[in-house]
């Protein structure tokens, strides 16, 4: 496909959701009124996200897979000369999978909401916010300018706040406040770091910064910048001990909000680590890499232990909260992979990113479905001692839940396996200059974390899916057709990524090699 078509596709990808968000607020034009205003606006959401997904797929097909390390579909226009902000867009092997994942998950969410609108006020604002959220996330992955990245990073805050605060469950107001105040504090501190890099290096352009590879930044500037930017990204990722907003936000958010929060928003943090910090300030990153790895490993163990505690009988564990804590653990693996500063580790991190988006997205969908049917996600209330016996009461739903759980614990052959294994491999042999014994210790502890993950996931499967079907228990409705439509793509991709990891690694590896080598190779 010609470059100008690709440019158009990428620009369209960013603009369409924003225009769609505005259009959602206007009354439906004649001919598109549908059965009711609610239905019309929900359909509008499905249409726009569908078109965006098609554009993303077309972009992926047109992408030159022989040169994934090259920035493609680039646009570079001056926007605010006073601040040296340029509308610099482009995709390479690192951002392309994340763009497609975002477009896919948002489309599935819109589709799911069409048939099962979130409980709360009218869906008009819901659709508009969903599209605004999509626009912000897609922009985060497609922009190549530090200040534009910051703008995109901030754009998602307001829509997510309202999605939680207006359509959420119990205790939603407090959870929404925690989410936005925590992440805003992080991102404002990140802005200081971005400005420091931009002012000292004389450019805000990510490609130029990557090529420069930190040569025009002094050691102290790099250390301060990495600390400031790292804190902002770590809050978003989230890294232990800055994670405490996440479980509350997930527990209170509506199903769709949880799916997007875990599936896409968390990736913005890890993407920033790879795209900005690794190439632009390698020396500063080198200084903090062991600490980052230590905190990542702490997160893995902490997340798993928290999950085990929640899964215990009598703990009144909330399933959504449990999955949120499991996310802290999974993102720990991603951070560990990045902290090794090796191609193996970073590739593993990017793979684990995508895998986590698919699997955790699926898990939140399934738990949302379970809540619709039983009215609760409290493990004790569900299991009632013996087990919820989902296999007997709704066999397909139970089967899918078991599938997602084993995918999440990293069963070989499914998507969850490769990323975490590569991250551990990376830790086995970290980049030159990083303490090998320390990283070997981290690797051993993280490997132990996988065992803990397996333990709690299996406990969840036993307590939710298994058990004798009691006589008086009513059968639950099994999976609806629309739920199949929303969930099947995630299942298929989980299996595909597990069996054919090359498809993804072939994209990311050349780009990662180039970033680590300093932008040019």
């Amino acid at each position, binding site marked *: 496909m010609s470059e100008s078509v690709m440019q158009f596709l990428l620009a369209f990808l960013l603009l369409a959701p924003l225009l769609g968000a505005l259009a959602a*607020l206007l009354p439906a034009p004649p001919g598109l009124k549908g059965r009711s205003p609610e239905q019309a606006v929900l359909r509008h959401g499905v249409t726009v996200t569908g078109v965006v997904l098609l554009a993303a797929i077309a972009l992926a097909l047109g992408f030159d897979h022989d040169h994934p390390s090259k920035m493609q579909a680039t646009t570079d226009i001056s*926007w*605010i*000369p*006073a*601040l040296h*902000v340029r509308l610099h867009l482009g995709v390479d092997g690192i951002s392309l999978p994340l763009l497609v994942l975002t477009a896919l998950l948002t489309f599935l969410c819109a589709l799911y909401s069409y048939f099962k609108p979130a409980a709360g*006020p009218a869906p008009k*604002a819901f659709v508009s916010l969903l599209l*605004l959220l999509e626009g*912000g996330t897609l922009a985060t992955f497609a922009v190549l300018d530090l*200040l534009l990245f*910051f*703008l995109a990073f*901030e*754009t998602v*805050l*307001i829509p997510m*706040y*309202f999605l939680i*605060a*207006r359509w959420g469950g119990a205790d939603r107001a407090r959870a929404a*406040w925690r989410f*936005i*105040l925590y992440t*805003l*504090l992080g991102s*404002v*501190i990140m*802005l*200081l770091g971005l*400005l*420091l890099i931009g*002012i000292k290096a004389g450019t805000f352009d990510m490609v130029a910064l990557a090529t420069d590879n930190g040569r025009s930044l002094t050691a102290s500037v790099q250390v*301060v910048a990495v600390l400031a930017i790292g804190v902002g990204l770590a809050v978003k990722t989230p890294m232990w001990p800055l994670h405490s907003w996440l479980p509350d936000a997930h527990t209170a958010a509506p199903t769709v909000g949880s799916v997007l929060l875990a599936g896409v928003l968390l990736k913005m943090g890890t993407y920033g680590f790879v795209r900005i910090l690794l190439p632009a300030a390698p020396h500063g990153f080198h200084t903090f890499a062991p600490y980052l790895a230590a905190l990542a490993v702490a997160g893995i163990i902490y997340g798993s232990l928290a999950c085990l505690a929640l899964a215990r009988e009598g703990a009144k564990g909330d399933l959504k909260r449990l999955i949120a804590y499991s996310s802290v653990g999974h993102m720990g693996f991603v951070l560990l992979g990045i902290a090794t500063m090796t191609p193996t580790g970073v590739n593993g991190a990017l793979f684990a990113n995508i895998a986590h988006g698919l699997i955790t997205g699926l898990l939140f969908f399934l738990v949302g479905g379970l809540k619709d049917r039983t009215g609760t996600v409290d493990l004790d209330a569900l299991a009632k001692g013996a087990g919820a016996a989902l296999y007997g009461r709704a066999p397909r739903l139970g089967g899918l839940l078991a599938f997602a759980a084993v995918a999440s614990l990293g069963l070989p052959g499914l998507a969850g396996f490769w990323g975490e294994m590569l991250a551990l491999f990376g830790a086995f042999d970290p980049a030159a200059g990083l303490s090998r014994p320390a990283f070997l210790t981290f690797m051993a502890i993280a490997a132990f974390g996988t065992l803990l993950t397996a333990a709690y996931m299996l406990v969840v499967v036993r307590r939710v899916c298994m058990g004798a079907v009691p006589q008086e228990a009513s059968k639950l409705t099994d999976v609806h057709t629309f739920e199949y439509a929303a969930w099947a793509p995630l299942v298929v991709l989980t299996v595909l990524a597990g069996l054919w990891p090359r498809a993804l690694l072939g994209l990311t590896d050349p780009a990662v090699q180039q970033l680590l080598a300093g932008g040019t190779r």
Partner: protein
Amino acid sequence: MSPLAASAVQSVDWLALAPTVLTAAVGLLVLVADLFLAEARKPLLGWVSVAGLAASGLLLLPLLDGDRATFCVREADAATRACSYTVDTFTLVIQFLVLGGALLTALLSVTALKDSARGLPEGEYWFLLLSSAAGAALLPASRDLATLVVALEVASLPAFALVGLRHGDRKSSEAALKFFLSSVTATAVTLMGISFLYATTGTLYLTEIADRVQHVDSQFHTLAQAGVVLTLIGFAFKTAAVPFHFWVPDTYVGAPLPIAAYLSVVGKAVGFTGLILVTVVALPSYADVWGPALAALAALTMTVGNVGALRQGVARAHSAVRLLAWSSVGQAGYLLVPIAAAAYTDDSGEAGHAVGSTVAYALMYAAVNLGAFAVAALVGRAHARNRVADYRGLYATNPLTALLLAFFLLCLAGLPPGVIGLFAKVTVFSAVVDAGLGWLAVVMAVNVVIALFYYLKWTALLFRAPEGEPVRHPLPAPLTAALALTGIVGIALSGAPQLVLRFADTGLF
């Protein structure tokens, strides 16, 4: 002609003076016309004033082609001529801000005067507003300390009267008295500082002071330093910087709402313009005195302002105006940051860029803050107590107004979709990071988060389901015009932030 007469009689560049003079002339015209106008025709005065302010704004256009100066003299043994009135980019931008702010205030006032049903005397009101605007427009152009103080007083004295103008309103009179007494004290202190500066340098011209203050006899060094600090106090008061902020909330609540809007924008512009002129133009060599002082002042101001806004209960009477008052104190802190940063730069070009950040931020702030006040004026018509709680469910009855207010508040908070608010904050941050003031940057970062809490709380309230019977607010034409104007400016700037941010990139002087 004898040489003596030649130096006393000079040609005056009336075109350069035109914006200021026209504003003052229309003010006098309105005052006189008020005497001869029948009671029913009084609203005409308002429209004359609006037209006058718009015309004054248009008179800025012919001045765009280059710098002008008038009232110049060559002082004894001085190398260059020193001018009292200079029109450069800085002057033009601030005059645009002042006249635009006054125009929007006038639009809000037309409705307020109509609603007050003779509670406010029309002729006096318009005269005072236009006089104050003329003073505020004179201030950025004045380049000697005497003109500066005269401009400051011309801008302030009518404002005291405007605050206390509501007949028989105890609160209004009390607010005016509070405002007056504290302001007069500040002015007296400033005059004292100016006299010290004059004593040490022997001149009132800013550029001359900048030159001579470097060669002050070491005996007078302390005197000069004291002069610098005392001069700044008066302007800090106008900017409502902490600890000179205590008059703000009560004055804003007691004043007619358009006047509160006027003080929050034009009043502040007067303050920080004076600060810039005194610090960056007149006393760059004393940067080590005023730099840390302004940095501390900025940090204190934004923290106290934002915490004050945070503590406002939504159900308290007049809490909307109180919140905007405290938030304006917080915003004044952000405005001071780049001026403080200018002290830490090496060359004057960099200092100009830092000051440009203040100007860019002020333009953004003026547009969105006046927009927020316009919505407050609209809601205040139906709900006399104007509580934040009264804004609940505004979206259900006036969707467009609610969306605009949400946009203005998010601009003030600096979060998308308020893109211009975000980039204005970025320029301020950029100036402070550039100057290496890390601690101030962190204080400001924390403040941005505190501020988000109350701005977003208000925003979220707009979209909640209304309590009880929703009241639809009818939109009078002048208010609609003010809303449309501020909304268009805000949205246009969000699309093309370069329109204002370019001042942060070019030399203003």
